[in-house]
């Protein structure tokens, strides 16, 4: 029986396509979730560091929308599909020159989801072109409940919002080959700084044991606060996200052209970006990198050992009841389920919720012995991950209830230290890959003239101490793994 049935206009198809194209930059597949009043597309990237959610209002976005639950899907239907095949279906068709040809553009697009006992589970999209050609595509789908990332808005004390097109223009100044974006404010100058950089290293020296920053270049773009619709950010709070994700978001935000709002609390905690247009709400939850500067500073001040952890995810706080700490965690913290001391310049949000996040999470957590020890099996995140094979089984109602509530919270209940080390291993792998594939030491000097009201400034850094400490840390963490 047809469970879900909706019709898109030509414009709707292109909005749908834009949304999918944006998601495709994060992941290969998308979860479709239909309720009576809305259709939601969600995806979580493979490293589970970014979550995308597009919500389409049933009564405003679609020309027709009908959801009819059955026994299996009473009040919501969900499935997972390949984005690539959807992209080719919902692409726009060229209108052609009207003089000679009939218009080949899309007149309407009917989508039906057919499922039920004894039926093939298919998503059928029937596209009717204005010239009369009808194309219908039928795609198999996987019945898999979506995973939602959780974001606690109460906790996110920092927020700013800005016109998405303005922000998109800033993106032009991001240099090539950068990975990370540090957003911070300076109340004295009334500016918000967008600093992009990368900490990729390349190997040098006779034994390849000397690591040098690949691009010792920081590009800083200062935007006057007046450009923002709202800025309410703790002064000098550095929040770091992945540029790739940010770019993907901005490219789509510019199409939707609304006001882009962000909410975040502190490094190592998720950041939410959202914007909306008529009938469509776009939300992104990105995990932020544990703040680097704060860490390195702190290491120097506090513990010698800590300097070996150049780039851990920050918040170690293990217990759900413990308060989130600012940024620093070290090995000593692992036995103490209490938050590490909070960085002086950072505000501690009042929420007791504790999460741990790495921008590069463990490559293969389930297989690692360390992961086993972290006892994450009952942790609330990555619910479906536990049993890969189960996703092929018929959907079980009981399980479903559980899975219905599946949420990724980036909440580490295990030992923080171990968790913290995973990304470093991953990071080392990354570095290796880069050193193999990239050309040696290219120093890109990126200079942007002052543009009103945006100021760009480029810092060239020498070899920083980060790579070497990074290496030390890698060895340290490898050791740690070995030990386990």
């Amino acid at each position, binding site marked *: 029986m047809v469970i879900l049935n909706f019709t898109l206009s030509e414009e709707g198809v292109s909005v749908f396509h834009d949304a999918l194209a944006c998601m495709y930059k994060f992941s290969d597949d998308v979860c479709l979730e239909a309720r009576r009043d809305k259709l939601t597309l969600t995806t979580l990237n493979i490293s589970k560091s970014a979550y995308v959610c597009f919500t389409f209002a049933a009564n405003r976005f679609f020309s027709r929308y009908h959801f009819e639950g059955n026994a299996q899907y009473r009040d919501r239907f969900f499935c997972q599909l390949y984005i690539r*095949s959807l992209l080719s279906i919902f692409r726009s068709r060229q209108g052609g020159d009207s003089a000679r040809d009939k218009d080949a553009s899309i007149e309407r697009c009917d989508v039906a989801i057919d499922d039920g006992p004894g039926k093939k589970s298919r998503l059928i999209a029937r596209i*009717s072109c204005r010239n*009369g*050609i*009808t*194309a219908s595509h*039928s795609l198999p789908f996987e019945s898999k409940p979506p995973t939602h990332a959780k974001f606690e808005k109460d906790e996110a004390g920092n927020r700013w919002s800005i016109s998405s097109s303005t922000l998109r223009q800033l993106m032009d100044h991001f240099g090539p080959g950068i990975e990370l974006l540090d957003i911070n404010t300076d109340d004295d100058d009334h500016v918000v700084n967008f600093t992009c950089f990368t900490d990729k290293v390349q190997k040098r020296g006779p034994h390849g044991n000397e690591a040098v920053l690949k691009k010792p270049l920081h590009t800083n773009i200062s935007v006057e606060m007046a450009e923002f619709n709202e800025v309410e950010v703790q002064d000098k709070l550095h929040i770091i996200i992945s540029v790739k994700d940010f770019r993907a978001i901005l490219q789509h935000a510019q199409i939707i052209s609304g006001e882009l709002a962000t909410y975040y609390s502190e490094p190592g905690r998720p950041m939410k970006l959202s914007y909306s247009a008529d009938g469509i709400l776009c939300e992104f939850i990105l995990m932020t990198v544990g703040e680097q500067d704060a860490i390195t500073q702190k290491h120097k001040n506090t513990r010698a050992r800590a300097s070996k952890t150049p780039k851990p995810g920050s918040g170690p706080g293990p217990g759900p009841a413990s308060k989130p700490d600012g940024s620093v965690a070290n090995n000593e913290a692992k036995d103490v389920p209490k938050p590490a001391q909070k960085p002086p310049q950072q505000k501690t949000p009042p929420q007791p919720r504790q999460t741990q996040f790495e921008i590069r999470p463990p490559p293969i957590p389930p297989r690692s012995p360390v992961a086993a020890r972290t006892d994450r099996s009952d942790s609330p995140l990555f619910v479906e991950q536990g049993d890969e094979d189960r996703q092929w089984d018929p959907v079980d109602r009981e399980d479903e209830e559980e899975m219905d509530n599946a949420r990724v919270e980036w909440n580490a209940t295990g030992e923080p230290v171990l968790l913290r080390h995973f990304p470093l291993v991953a990071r080392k792998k990354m570095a290796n890959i880069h050193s193999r594939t990239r050309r040696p030491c290219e120093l890109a000097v990126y200079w942007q003239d002052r543009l009103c009201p945006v100021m760009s400034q480029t810092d060239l850094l020498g070899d920083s101490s980060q790579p070497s400490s990074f290496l030390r840390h890698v060895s340290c963490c490898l050791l740690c793994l070995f030990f386990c």
Partner: protein
Amino acid sequence: MSQPTQDAGPPLFRAVASSTRPLYQLLKAVGFTNKIHVEITPEGLRFSADHARVMQGAAHWNKNLFASYTTNLPPAAGNGDDDDPEPEPVSFQISLPAFLETLQIFGVADVAARQARSDIDPLVRGNPRMNHQHRGGNGSDAFSHQTLHGGGFASSSSNGTCILSYPSDGGPFSIILEEAGVKTTCNLTTYLPEMPEDIPFDIDDLSFKVIMQARYLLDALAEVGSINPERLTIVVSRKEPYLRFRTSGSHSGAGGPGVESTVDFRRGRDLLETFSVRAVERAKGERRWSQTFKFDTIKAATEAMRIASKVSLRGDGQGVLSMQFMVEVEGAGGAGGGVPGGGAGLSFLDFRFVPYATDGDEETDTEGEGDDVDMSEA
């Protein structure tokens, strides 16, 4: 400077074109092989490409694409006389990628740029005239006829010349391109003709015939091709949906197995200018023609669909599919009004496809019955 070196007698073939663009486009449409079979006839050049004996494509360069066209074909039936209808055609094979590369050596895309340049470059315009004078020396019959072309040609906005010649059997095929004082001579090695027989297409046993704009065919194939399919099934039936293309995803495709795409003309019946079906499928008691082809071979004709204005799809009783494309080309290299009766010439591209062998129970049966139904539009 444009005089080709001639050692012994007039070349077997010599033609001058002012623009390589239509030549390139037509040839590119059959550009799915490495070696292409060339046949020189007094009426033009015929190019045949073959892919694994399941697909064949043929392009024609009609002689009115050229400002001048001369052949001195072997005396089997006359001595290089164009008026003689039966000279022995000369055939050989050449490397198609190299040929295509040569033809676009000055770029075929930037016509506008070249036209702009031609206004200030009398040298370029001068060259064609010289070619004609040279050809006059050959004393061919075509000359007097073609002079008219030359006149209109030289005074039009043409600016480059392309001289094709085949001096003698077994010799290199030579292409001389001149533009803005730059002269490029390319000699392509010719190979022994090795053209397999044509795929048999029984024109007396047509099962269906559909004529439509090539664009719709292109759109339809783009639609079903998005899942990177392996096979394409074409169904033609008298009743709805009339004409249907169906593919299913391959394992390597975007959608993976289980994905199916269908395009039909149920509502787009009026897009089909001519539509006649004569096939009978006994098993299902309905008149339809249904054959499955390798999608990649059909896709190889995409370039033809792009440049053609109309396409005629025909299927015969054995399931062989013929696609004939009508391409409107600027006649005689943009000579414009100078060509008597030439104008925008029509050129045709022919493709034939062999279907997958069908299972016994699906075998189409076209014997006897099935009176011709012509539902072509008024």
